[in-house]
């Protein structure tokens, strides 16, 4: 359990650790930004909406 993101905040990050964290965050950010454009995501959103509407009718 030693990912640099979870080092105690009083321990300074090395440049390599900060670069590693930055890269992982940037990847997660891009992936998340792209998710709304994926057809599978839009289909699931519609599916959830339909299920909610059915729940509300009950």
């Amino acid at each position, binding site marked *: 359990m030693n990912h640099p993101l979870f080092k105690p905040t009083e321990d300074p990050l090395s440049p390599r650790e900060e670069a590693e964290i930055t890269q992982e965050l940037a990847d997660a950010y891009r992936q998340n930004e792209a998710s709304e454009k994926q057809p599978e995501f839009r289909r*699931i959103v519609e599916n959830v909406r339909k299920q909610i509407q059915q729940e509300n009718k009950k």
Partner: protein
Amino acid sequence: MSLPITSLSLLSRLRDEGDHAGWQVSWKRFLELYHGPLMAMAASIYRHHTGNAVPPQEAIEDVVATVVVDFFKRDRYDPERGRLRTYLRVLTNARIVDMLRKEKPLDHESMTAGGDALAESLPAESPEEGRSFQQALLATLIEDLREHIPLRQFEIFEMVKLKGMSPDQAAAELGVHRGVIDNSIYKVMIRLREIAASPEYQEEYYESSSF
């Protein structure tokens, strides 16, 4: 129960308080953040119960949608009792088992067993699930960060750290001195690590946990 105000706990709070508008916003946001790991979970669990059959895309999407509705409908998830990723895997497993029973369960030769034994057979987390969940958690962390720092600081962090713009470019674009950029990044990185230090992030991040 006192929890840090992070996106993870915010989701639970919105659901618990029956905030309808918040509920509508939060399921969509939750799906944006977690549909990747949910898809990976559903595919992996499907393969486990069917002797490595290829998961049908439409069925997997249907399972993910049902898990999201279940997650927000049921008032069962309590962060103090277990990890979010485990809870989502249990829900996903139950929905996969339901789906396979509706199909012809006996056609799936390698189903481990019928009835309750099948429902209880939760496979080990696959590496793909683990990676996908970690990525979703980091996106949640960015969301939390946005809520906890001034907008201008987040904008600078986003330009330089998330979008890869050079500090000099960011300074020119925003019409500020380079020192403002460096100072903002320094402050944001400290705040980021403070938020990441909350137990819920550490407990959720790692694949196996003693929590």
